[in-house]
């Protein structure tokens, strides 16, 4: 066996093998790529890609057999994650709505610094078809009293007509018995908004007692005048929806579309305190 290590060939290949060990190691430690190594990788990389593709295919096929339990477990975990994420999405959507509402709340507070507002949620609506009353989730325990105005950032909703410990009934302004002192913002004409049974389903109310020569037109904004000591001045009631002039009686029949959408109310604000200011005709001139 000694003769195996005594041949010239063995010495030569040993030296070459040592060179193939030392040179790439030294070059790698210096951060230099060995030219031959670069050439080998350059030639074989496309073939490596093909072999990797084959390995992927084999992994996928073999997975049916040895990864079945693992896949079932993973599927169950993913189902739980999806359910959790769906709950988070739902909560997130709710929070978004809350934030939007609170932004409106703060904007109102910024404009009307004298207002003291109590947020409330609508918990119920009228049980019959003849009333547009709402039930909210705040009552006497939160300081709510009868005749307090209820508003949203869009406009007036109504007033408190019944108070419980932790609930209250709100009569909306579309109710036939409701009336709100109002004025046309553009023309400063005073009037009274009154609910009408025939118009309530469409979210409309009448604006009465406008002067016969009023220049009020469709689209004009109607605000509360503060007259009546229930609603403060400057709150939006709605927008003129139609104007009819009776030439014989020289009177105008104006219908106003309420700004607050009663069908979609979920959160409202109760004005527990504000500075009472009554607008008179001379103030508006």
């Amino acid at each position, binding site marked *: *066996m000694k003769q*195996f290590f005594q041949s010239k*060939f*063995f010495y030569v*290949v*040993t030296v*070459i*093998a*040592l060179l*193939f*060990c*030392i040179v*790439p*190691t030294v070059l*790698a*430690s210096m951060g230099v790529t*060995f030219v*031959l*190594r670069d050439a*080998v*990788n350059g030639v*074989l990389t496309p*073939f*490596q890609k093909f*072999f*990797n593709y*084959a*390995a*992927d295919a*084999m*992994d996928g096929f073999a997975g049916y057999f040895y990864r079945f339990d693992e896949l079932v477990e993973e599927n169950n975990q993913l189902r739980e994650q999806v359910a959790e994420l769906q709950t988070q999405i739902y909560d997130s959507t709710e929070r978004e709505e809350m934030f939007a509402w609170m932004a409106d709340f703060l904007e109102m507070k910024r404009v009307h610094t004298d207002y003291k507002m109590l947020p409330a949620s609508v918990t119920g609506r009228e049980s019959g078809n003849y009333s547009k009353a709402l039930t909210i989730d705040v009552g006497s325990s939160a300081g709510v009293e009868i005749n307090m105005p209820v508003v949203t950032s869009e406009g007036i909703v109504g007033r408190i007509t019944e108070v419980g410990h932790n609930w209250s009934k709100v009569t909306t302004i579309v109710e036939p018995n409701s009336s709100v002192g109002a004025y046309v913002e553009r023309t400063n004409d005073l009037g009274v908004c009154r609910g009408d049974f025939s118009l309530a389903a469409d979210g409309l109310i009448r604006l009465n007692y406008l002067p016969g020569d009023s220049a009020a037109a469709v689209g004009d904004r109607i605000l509360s005048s503060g007259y009546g000591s229930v609603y403060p001045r400057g709150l939006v009631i709605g927008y003129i929806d139609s104007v009819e002039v009776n030439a014989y009686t020289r009177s105008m029949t104006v219908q106003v579309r309420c700004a607050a959408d009663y069908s979609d109310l979920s959160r409202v604000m109760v004005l527990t305190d504000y500075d009472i200011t009554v607008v008179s005709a001379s103030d508006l001139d």
Partner: protein
Amino acid sequence: MKKRDKILMKSETVISEKEIDLHRPETRSLRQRIKAIIDADIAGRFVVCVLLLVFFALLQTTVFARFRPFGAIPDLMLPLCLAVGMTERGRWGAIFGIAAAFVIESLGAATVSVLAVLYMLAGYLAGCLTAEMFRDTPATRAAYTLVACGLHMLTTLFVLYVTVEGIHFGDAMLKSVLPEFVASVVFAPIPHVVAWLALKPFHKPREEKVQ
């Protein structure tokens, strides 16, 4: 009797007469030697060895690197070097070993190159021992594989201690060295069988030659 004649006498397979011509004085001109090489199927064996080298290198660095049987990548090149050495004898085994080490370390982006010496020795000694002492049987192939894989454990330990700071001997053995040894031994028959089948057409048994 010259040394090469002794080797020829002991060999189980008959090397072609054309290959013998290579060593005769009248064939030493370059053109004649090249012609003799081509005639002696050496070119064919060279191509087959290159294909085997590339195939198993890619297999080891892609498929087996993905599946990692026993938690390690089996070394297919070492049994392949042994197989080529035992089939084609010491010189081919040595050169094949150096090439195999270089290719596998290039594809694997090794920072410390130590396999060239191991693979060269494995191929060379496997070839020489097969020619001089032990017949080429599955038992001898298995024995050579076990010894070579055992030596490979030492090189793997050396590389781990050089490249990984603060490595613990137990961790190295349990997480890398032993799994690699087991995986290499288990999958060693594949390169042995493939190489034997691929190179078999180039070697005719003595009985066929006599006929």
